C-alpha cells in the first residue's frame, strides 16, 4: 500500500495531466469553453431567483435561493464525482489494457476536474452573495475543512465504486438511481425541519445519512440563519433553519469518511490487478 502511494507520487504529473485533459476535452469545440463552468451556477441562480420571486413574493426569496445554492453546489459536486468516476476505468480500455500506470489516477482525475468546477461555481455563488449584500458568518473560515471532509468521503466512495464497476457493470446504473433517491433523503431543496416533523421517530435514522451532515455543514457555514445572519435580519423563524448538526454527527461522518477512503483505496488496489483482462 505504501509502495502504491509512492508509485502514485511518481505519477503525480500524470494525475495533473489527466485532470487537465478531462477539462480540455470537455470544452473542446465549444465556443464558450471554460465559461460554461460559470454559466451553470449563473443560470441556476437566475432561474431560482425568478421562480421564487414569483412563488414567494417577499424578502424570503433571497433566503431560499441562498439556502438552496449552499447545499446544491456541494451536492452536485458529490454526484458529478460519483457519476463521472464510476465509469472511468471501464471507459478507458485504450489506456488500461495497453499501458501500465497507477489506475487510481483515472477516478482521481475525474474528481480533480470536478474540484476545479466546484471552485468555479463557488466563486460565482460568492460573487452573487456579495452583490446581494449577504452577511457572511465567521464560520465561513471552516470552508477548507468542510471541503476536505466532503472530498475525503467522495474519494473513498469513488474508488470503491469505480473498481466494483469493472466486475459488475450494474454499479454504474445503480449509482444513477441511488443518487436520485439520496438527493431527496438529504435536506437540500427542503428545510431539514420539514423532515423532522414528517418523520417523527424515524428522524434519528434520517440523521445517519453522512451527506445530511456534510450538506448541513455547508449550509451552516454559508447560509447560517441562526448564528449570524439571523441577528441582522431578525426574522429567523420564518426561514429554513440548520438545526441538527451535532458533535457526534460530525465526528461520525469524519470517521466514516476516513474509513471509506482507506477501505476504498485498499479495495481498488486489490482489484486493480484484474482490470486489464476484465474490460
Amino acid at each position, binding site marked *: 500500500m505504501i509502495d502504491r502511494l509512492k508509485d502514485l507520487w*511518481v*505519477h503525480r*504529473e*500524470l494525475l*495533473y*495531466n*489527466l485532470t487537465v*485533459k478531462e477539462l*480540455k*476535452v470537455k470544452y*473542446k469545440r465549444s465556443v464558450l469553453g471554460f465559461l460554461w463552468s460559470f454559466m451553470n451556477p449563473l443560470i441556476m441562480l437566475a432561474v431560482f431567483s425568478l421562480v421564487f420571486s414569483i412563488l414567494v413574493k417577499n424578502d424570503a426569496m433571497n433566503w431560499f435561493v441562498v439556502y438552496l445554492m449552499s447545499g446544491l453546489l456541494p451536492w452536485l459536486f458529490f454526484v458529478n464525482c460519483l457519476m463521472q468516476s464510476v465509469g472511468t476505468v471501464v471507459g478507458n480500455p*485504450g*489506456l*488500461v*489494457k*495497453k*499501458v*501500465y*500506470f497507477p489506475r487510481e489516477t483515472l477516478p482521481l482525475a475525474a474528481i480533480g476536474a470536478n474540484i476545479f468546477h466546484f471552485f468555479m461555481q463557488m466563486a460565482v455563488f460568492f460573487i452573487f452573495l456579495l452583490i446581494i449584500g449577504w452577511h457572511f458568518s465567521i464560520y465561513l473560515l471552516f470552508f477548507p475543512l468542510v471541503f476536505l471532509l466532503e472530498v475525503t468521503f467522495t474519494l473513498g466512495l469513488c474508488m470503491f465504486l469505480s473498481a466494483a464497476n469493472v*466486475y*459488475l*457493470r*450494474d454499479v454504474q446504473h445503480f449509482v444513477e438511481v441511488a443518487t436520485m433517491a439520496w438527493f431527496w433523503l438529504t435536506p437540500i431543496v427542503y428545510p431539514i425541519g420539514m423532515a423532522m416533523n414528517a418523520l417523527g421517530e424515524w428522524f434519528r435514522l434520517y440523521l445517519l445519512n453522512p451527506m445530511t451532515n456534510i450538506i448541513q455543514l455547508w449550509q451552516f457555514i454559508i447560509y447560517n440563519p441562526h448564528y449570524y445572519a439571523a441577528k441582522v435580519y431578525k426574522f429567523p423563524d420564518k426561514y429554513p433553519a440548520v438545526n441538527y448538526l451535532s458533535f457526534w454527527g460530525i465526528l461520525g461522518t469524519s470517521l466514516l469518511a476516513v474509513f471509506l477512503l482507506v477501505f476504498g483505496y485498499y479495495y481498488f488496489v486489490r482489484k486493480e*490487478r*484484474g482490470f*486489464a*483482462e*476484465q474490460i
Partner: protein
Amino acid sequence: MAEYAVEIDEVSKMFKLYHENVKSLKEKVLFFRKRGYEEFWALKDVSVSVKPGETLGIIGANGSGKSTLLKCVTKILYPTSGKVVTNGSIAALLELGAGFQPDLTGRENVYLNASILGFSKKEVDKRFDEIVAFAELERFIDNHVRNYSSGMYIRLGFAIAINVDPDILIIDEVLAVGDEAFQRKCLERIEEIQESGKTIIFVTHNVEITKEICSYVVMLDHGSVVKEGRPREVVNYYHQVMETAEEGSERGDRRLEILGVALLNEAEEPTTVFHTGQPMKIRVAWRANEPVTDPVFGFSIDDYRGFTAYGTNTRLKGLDLGTLTGEGFVQFDLSSLPMLEGRYLVSAAIHSRDEQTIYHWLDRHVPFDMKSDVDDAGLLYVPTEIQVFR
C-alpha cells in the same frame, strides 16, 4: 547492479473465456456457483531471463502469447502463477498509439504519454524538440492526433518511448506500420540504445530482424517456449514450423501431370541440404495423361517470404519440347547455388506456351536448407577479393 534486468519465472496466465460477456447482476445471480466460463491458458510455465544490456527477441505465430507475456512484464496483466521481477525503469510500446488521446494535439499527447510512463514535464521539455524531430512531425505537432495516419501515430509513440531514456525498452510489433525509412531509423536507434547498455525486449513477425538485432530469441507456441537460443537457430526452426503449417498449393488440369520433384546433389543423390556454391539438379518427373503439344516446364526457388531467388523455364531458355506422350523427366542443372544460409522452397510448373492453360503447378512444393561456411551478411554469396592499399 542486479543480475537480471527482467526475470520471468515459470509464468502462467489463465484467461477466463466467458460464454457470453454479460456481467450483470442477473448473470451473477443466475449463474451463482455455476461456472460460466472456460479456462484458457495463454501462457504455460514460461521462464526467460534477460541480463542488462541484452536484447531479447520473442517470436511465434498469432495468438501464441507474445503480447500476453509482454503485458505480464509491464504489469498490465498479472500472472496466474509464477512471477516477474524487473529492475529498472520501463518504457513499453505495446500497441499503436496506446495512450494517445485523439482529442488532444500531438504536443499535449507527448506530455500526457510521457507522464504515463512516469516522466516529468521538465524531462520532456528538455527532449521535446528531439522527440518531434525524430518523429518528423514538426508541421503536425499542434494538430489533433485524431487526424494522424497510423504511421504518424507510431512515429510519435516510438519517439517518446525511446527518448524518455528508459532502462528497459519493450516493443510489441508496432514498427511494422512505419514506412521503410522510418523502420531503418528505428533500427539504427535501437542499435544505439543497445550500445548504451540498455535492455530491450522485442516482439516481431519480421523474424529476420531478430537475426540482426537480438542476442537471444525465444519462440512461443500456444503459450509455451518451444525453442530458445541463438537467433539464427530459432529463426530457422520458426520457418520450418510455419511452413509445415501452410500447405503448398497445387493447381492445373493435369493433362500433363507432375509425378514428383527431386532435388539432387553433385553425386545425383536426393537431399534437402545444400551448401553455398554447390550445384543442384532439379528433376521434374512427368506423365502425359493425353498427348500435349508445346508445353513449358519451369521452376522457381523462393525464400520463406515468397521472394523468388531465381526461376526460369524451357521457353525462356529457347527450348521447344514438341508433343509429349507417355512419361519422362525434365532436369534443370544449376551449376552453383549463390544463396547464403536460410530455408528455401522449390516450385515446379508445366503450362502452355502462352500460360493460358496450366497443366500442373506445385507451389512451394519442395523445401531445402542452405548451409554456408561463411558468415557473410545478406541473401547471396558474391565472391569477393579484398585488397588493401596503403
